[in-house]
């Protein structure tokens, strides 16, 4: 019998593992800082770089792409080799994957606090980094497929199917959603506008959850849970069935982020229906995982790794029941824009992704360093700290979410809003936000305990070396099949396979991108809606820079409770020039779509300088730098050009007139400020542009009403 001797690459697994732990701490501390700012805005240290608006995307990107990303690579690189009985296709690609991915994250950590952001959730990184992400992802995909092609185990275990679906779908999602026209080295405008941008964004956003946070981790669960429990998967057949069902259904769920918005009704219903159906394959995964532990529950009691795994799978089940329920329009009418969404996200993020990653780390470190875990006791402390952390996070957020939602909807017996002042709803939530920060702190403490434990484990072990193994190989691997043609033949030619794959992807890319240049959707459905002026464009870009969209929505839903509070509900046609859309996902502060003309210029000036002067008790931080920093108009021609190229109908010579028009409008804003007793405002400051933008919001349809 022929045997082949080769080595599994453990060094790359160790690299990803260490990166995972480091980014866990960074990402979660960023989250804690953001959470504290929601009841103590001064926690931004009065720096513009650490305001909630700029910090939130740093937190989300760090925990999703840095923590879960490295965790995913760690888990995949270890398990894929052993499932394929082959070393990774290319060591060089492995290290490009590692360094490329982590340098991208460093780029994120630098650019996001600087306000260099697209504002699109989980896709905030600007276009040069987007390109880097695409390249590194192709490297990962080639490494993945190359390893599969040279596998010595003919059968592809179900985990591998999950990894494949991740690699392919994330590439498609990222490329599509990131399509934008650059207007500078770190500024771009989304190819899409308004409603279309919202749909593409949440087609991407929900599938990022599906194919970055779910499918790879289900794959990891299918490898590590049986391995640790020393029991086969409960039903292998079920795993195959729910895999295919899951990947077919997930892609359609995106619109559930846009229920009761200006997205067409039929699209909303489509998203709702597919989201509800998604319960079935998701719970197939959860049940399969938990039932695998039949007869092994005493092992769970003793092994911290399994404890974490059980909570992870259970949290997955909870989140995938809650998600479909939140996707039902009537439920969503209460939950949208509230902390309930945050609670839901963090059940999945802390419970499923967090705990499963910890589980893998506790299982892998001893194996990589050929030693025992330094302290089972400390691992148990981590488990309970983490579990308490999740509870103190989720439960207060449920209370605050439902409180918020109900208060917004409450009417008095006479038919007026019970809480007409949005501030009342903000202040009511402060205790729950404090508790949530306690939860986050507990969770981080657990992670620190784990980091110490793993460090001591590594110190007490041997240096990481590759696992040398001997695998029996049937000489004629292809002999079992009568037909050697087609795909089978292609699989034995990895280089050609890779080239053809790349060509296919490129063709697909071209087919997808070219029509975007041809499709023009700038036919205004509301004739009074016009493009933003030059000053308003710059003001809007400042709104994006400061991350205002993290706390303020721009989408008045067709409910009486919203029209009473904000004004006319938002129409799709109002957003045709919004590149990118700024509908928002959360109302920490009030909706702003109809804020134009509601307050005088001076109110906005004072409010931005220090929100507490106009709104006592507000948790919004001061933005004094907007009053002192000069507005940079040098990039104005480039921005107008870029916006025109994505479909905003600026006249051909607008660049030559824009500066003068901007200065005229700025002077008018300053005059308005003087009326409100703000005498020392200078027309060349950033605040002027922001006020111009805010005063424009939602006013175009009023213009129509006047006519």
């Amino acid at each position, binding site marked *: 019998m022929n045997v082949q001797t*080769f080595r599994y690459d453990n060094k790359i697994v160790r690299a990803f593992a260490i990166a995972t732990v480091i980014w866990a701490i960074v990402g979660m501390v960023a989250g804690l800082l953001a959470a504290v700012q929601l009841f103590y805005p001064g926690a931004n240290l009065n720096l513009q770089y650490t305001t909630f608006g700029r910090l939130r995307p740093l937190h989300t990107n760090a925990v999703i792409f840095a923590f879960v990303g490295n965790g995913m690579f760690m888990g995949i690189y270890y398990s894929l080799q052993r499932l394929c009985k082959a070393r990774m296709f290319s060591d060089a690609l492995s290290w490009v994957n590692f360094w490329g991915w982590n340098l991208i994250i460093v780029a994120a950590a630098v650019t996001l606090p600087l306000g260099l952001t697209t504002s699109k959730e989980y896709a905030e990184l600007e276009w040069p980094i987007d390109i880097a992400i695409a390249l590194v992802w192709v490297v990962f995909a080639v490494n993945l497929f190359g390893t599969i092609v040279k596998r010595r185990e003919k059968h592809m275990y179900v985990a591998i199917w999950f990894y494949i679906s991740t690699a*392919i779908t994330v590439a498609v999602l990222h490329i599509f959603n990131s399509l934008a026209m650059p207007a500078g080295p770190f500024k771009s405008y989304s190819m899409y506008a308004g409603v279309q941008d919202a749909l593409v964004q949440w087609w991407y956003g929900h599938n990022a959850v599906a194919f970055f946070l779910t499918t790879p981790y289900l794959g990891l669960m299918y490898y590590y849970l049986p391995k640790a429990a*020393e029991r086969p998967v409960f039903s*292998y057949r079920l795993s195959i069935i729910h895999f295919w069902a899951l990947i077919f259904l997930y892609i359609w769920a995106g619109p559930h982020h846009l229920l009761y918005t200006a997205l067409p009704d039929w699209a909303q219903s489509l998203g709702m229906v597919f989201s509800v159906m998604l319960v079935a394959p998701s719970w197939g995964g959860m049940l399969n995982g938990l039932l695998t532990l039949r007869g092994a529950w005493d092992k769970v009691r003793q092994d911290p790794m399994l404890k974490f795994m059980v909570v992870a799978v259970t949290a997955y089940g909870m989140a995938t029941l809650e998600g479909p329920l939140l996707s039902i329009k009537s439920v969503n009418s209460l939950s949208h824009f509230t902390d309930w969404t945050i609670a839901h996200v963090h059940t999945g993020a802390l419970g499923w992704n967090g705990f499963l990653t910890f589980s893998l780390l506790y299982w892998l470190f001893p194996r990589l360093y050929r030693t025992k875990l330094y302290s089972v006791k400390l691992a148990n402390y981590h488990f309970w700290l983490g579990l308490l952390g999740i509870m103190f996070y989720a439960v207060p957020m449920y209370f605050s979410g439902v409180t918020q939602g109900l208060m917004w909807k409450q009417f008095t017996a006479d038919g007026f809003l019970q809480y007409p002042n949005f501030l009342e709803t903000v202040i009511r939530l402060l205790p729950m936000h404090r508790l949530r920060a306690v939860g986050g702190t507990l969770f981080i403490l657990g992670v620190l305990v784990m980091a110490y434990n793993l460090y001591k484990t590594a110190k007490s072990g041997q240096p990481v070396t590759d696992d040398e*193994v*001997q695998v029996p190989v049937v000489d004629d691997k292809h002999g079992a099949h009568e037909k050697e043609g087609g795909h089978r033949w292609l699989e034995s030619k990895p280089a050609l396979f890779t080239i053809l794959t790349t060509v296919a992807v490129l063709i697909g890319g071209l087919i*997808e991108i070219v029509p975007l240049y041809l499709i023009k959707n700038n036919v205004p459905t509301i004739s009074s809606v016009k493009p933003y002026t030059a000053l308003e464009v710059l003001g809007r870009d400042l709104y994006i820079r400061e991350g205002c969209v993290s706390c303020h929505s721009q989408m008045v839903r067709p409910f009486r409770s919203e029209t009473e509070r904000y004004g006319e509900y938002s129409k799709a046609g109002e957003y045709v020039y919004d590149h990118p859309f700024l509908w928002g996902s959360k109302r920490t502060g009030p909706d702003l779509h109809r804020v134009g003309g509601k307050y005088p210029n001076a109110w906005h000036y004072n409010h931005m300088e220090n929100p507490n002067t106009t709104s006592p008790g507000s948790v919004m931080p001061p933005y004094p730098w907007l009053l002192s920093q000069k507005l940079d108009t040098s990039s104005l021609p480039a921005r107008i050009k870029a916006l025109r190229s994505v479909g905003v109908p600026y006249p051909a010579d607008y660049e030559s007139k824009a500066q003068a028009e901007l200065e005229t409008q700025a002077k008018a804003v300053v005059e308005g400020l003087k009326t409100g007793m703000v005498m020392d405002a200078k027309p060349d400051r950033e605040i002027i542009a922001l006020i111009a933008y805010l005063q424009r919001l939602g006013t175009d349809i009023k213009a129509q009403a006047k006519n």
Partner: protein
Amino acid sequence: MEVIILLILASLVLAGGFLGVFIWASRSGQFEDTTTPAMRMLVDDPAPKAESVRQSPKPKHS
């Protein structure tokens, strides 16, 4: 809302791709055995025995 055409097209192509891959998998026998893979993955590959260690043969295809 024209972008919906693009999204549906892309999703259909992706779904069609997945369907194609499923059909390939079925035909090439990936689902013939749904019992032993779950058990075989539990067994770690053995370290090479001292006497029978030899160089891994050069791969036939690069």
